[in-house]
């Protein structure tokens, strides 16, 4: 495996992308070869079956660097399966993931993307601080960075609590904190607002936007369409394991021929 993938991974939390280290040689070569902006990630023909049941059917879309992409669809649409197959924690039956124009095999996806699953309480017997310290240690994050993440996500009151004793909201914050500690350029999050009230959701949205403005790309699987409309730059509409449409809200409105419609209305019209 001699290929090297373009990693924009060394973006410290709270710093802009311009402060990141210089790109890898492969990155510079790719940049020179492509004058037209290339998508960060291209997914094509992604198919997943569970026995006879088809969960994903030839799913394909592109993700641009620095954007917040919303994967939207009802429960059972295949959002989680799609995120897991992209992240490589679930084997796909067919399809291809391309990173900066280079095919990215399953085994190396974790070098460029980090997936935060829904409903996970990692290491339930451990205090929150220990879990955070573990991830900070693995990714060689400084104490200052860890302190920043704790402050930004308001985790200080729960640091000594065991993970199993956390409320749903704090458990979700812990997961977000792990994502914030991971230095990957692409973050995949499954239902990131689940467990938050409106005020907390707004705060988390602010943090996600801040993260995106610092150069990180986010793919969010959201079943609450109102939340998705508030947060995301572009949307991929998923239903029954198929991509029904993809684009910005304006593009979707245009295609649905409903200039004033909400994302919810468009989704109902297109699916």
């Amino acid at each position: 495996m001699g290929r090297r993938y373009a990693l924009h991974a060394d973006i410290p939390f709270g710093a802009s992308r311009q402060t990141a280290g210089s790109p890898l040689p492969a990155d510079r070569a790719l940049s020179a070869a492509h004058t037209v902006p290339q998508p960060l990630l291209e997914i094509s023909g992604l198919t997943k079956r569970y026995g006879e049941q088809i969960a994903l059917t030839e799913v394909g879309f592109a993700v641009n660097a620095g954007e917040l992409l919303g994967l939207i669809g009802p429960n059972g649409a295949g959002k989680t399966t799609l995120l897991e197959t992209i992240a490589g924690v679930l084997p796909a039956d067919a399809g291809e993931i391309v990173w900066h124009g280079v095919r990215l095999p399953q085994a190396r996806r974790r070098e460029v993307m980090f997936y935060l699953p829904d409903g996970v309480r990692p290491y339930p017997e451990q205090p929150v601080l220990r879990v955070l310290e573990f991830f900070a240690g693995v990714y060689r994050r400084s104490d200052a960075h860890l302190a920043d993440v704790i402050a930004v996500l308001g985790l200080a009151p729960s640091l000594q609590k065991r993970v199993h004793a956390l409320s749903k909201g704090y458990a979700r914050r812990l997961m977000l904190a792990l994502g914030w500690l991971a230095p990957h350029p692409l973050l995949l999050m499954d239902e990131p607002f689940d467990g938050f009230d409106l005020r907390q959701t707004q705060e988390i949205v602010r943090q996600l936007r801040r993260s995106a403005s610092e150069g990180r790309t986010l793919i969010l699987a959201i079943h609450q369409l109102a939340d998705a409309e508030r947060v995301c730059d572009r949307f991929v509409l998923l239903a029954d394991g198929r991509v029904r449409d993809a684009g910005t809200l304006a593009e979707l409105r245009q295609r649905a021929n409903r200039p004033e419609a909400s994302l919810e209305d468009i989704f109902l019209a297109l699916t």
Partner: protein
Amino acid sequence: MRSRDALMIGRAPFAPLIAKELREILGGRALWIMLLLICPLIGYSFFEAASLYGEASEAATQSPVVAASLSPLDGILVPTFGAAYVAVTLMFPFVAIRVLGQEKESGALHLLAQLPYRASTLIAAKLAAVFAAWALASIPMLSALVVWRLLGGHLSIPETTNLLGGHALYGLLVGAIALFAAAISESAATAAIVTLAFTIGSWVLDFTLAGHPGLADWIAQLSLTQILRSFEQGLLSFGLVAGILTTAAGLAALAAVWLPPGVPVRSKLIRSAMCIIAVLVGLGASSQIKLSLDVTEDRRNSFPLADERALAKLFDPLVVKVHLAPEDPRYADLRRNVLAKLERAMPHVSIRFFGGRQGVGTGDDAYGEVEYVYGGRSDVSRSTSPREILPLLYDLAGAQRPQAEPGADYPGYPLIADAYWSLPWFFGALPLLVAFAWWRSRRPPRINPSWCVTEVST
């Protein structure tokens, strides 16, 4: 640049991973409950063993011959450590499964699998944590040794170390089985059933198949309980050690194959097949290692020292033609008393079977005979005792029987001791210490005051 390094698979630091695994295994109840149960189990076994040893020692005060038969290895160590064996067989799987089973059940495996570690590194860290848990669980066992010494008992360092090493290898093997079971199972409960099928299944094999001829006997040899027998007899068999380590490494490798959730099952099956082939080759190579050491102080697995020296000088090949079925008790005696000792003492010994099956009316008059061929000469004996076989061999080789060396006899270590005062230690003080350590392990971590700044409204 440091962050980029952190993302490269295999470049991440090992210390946070092993610290996490140790915290995980210490954070669960299983290890502490096992420790609390082991304390009285070991204590009772030790008390019973010391009491019986004391009773036997009373008779030894009148007879040096009886005294010479009293070895702390048989009288104290094996029965006391036997309690630990039962605990490791029945309870340790639940401790070991936890290091992976809980991550699977909580969904944390999806996070773990994305960290920049190879699957083999993850499993190595888990196996190291499991072994550390075994080391912690062996504290009551080690404390029994201290109590025995405080009572005035004798301990032979090589015997004790060898037996401890055997139990450590057994613990490692059970841990590796548990890890493998956790890797292939969806839940910890299923993993526990798989592991207990191995460990308790070994007992079933022992009870039902041992002593039966042919395939049944061969299958019985695969039993996990057979592993400890050699160590309990005071033998350090390098082939056995290599076999155990190969099996444990193979199970760990299989666990590493089945750990990553994103790899298709077909790929896992292919890699597993390759792993199994490698393990079988390793086990085949291990079985060819004949080197073993008798670490017992009474040299029960060896001939007298003078004979050993004389036999070591017989460089021609010795061929032993055994007209006995392998399941015949006489063969077991011959094997233990003569053949195994000859294999360690002489440079070239080969054993051939001509016995087939023992049966009424087979008409094989030679059945029961053992023919010894050395230097073109041969002789036959039906004895299983070295007192008759060694002179026969010296005659075949035309060598003088060596004189017994004075002062080489094992004196035995009788001890009449009151072991009652050990009971408060095993039933009171030690469990209290374990409970205290458990409480300490659950104390919340210290918080850096600078972290207590909240940005998000709650």
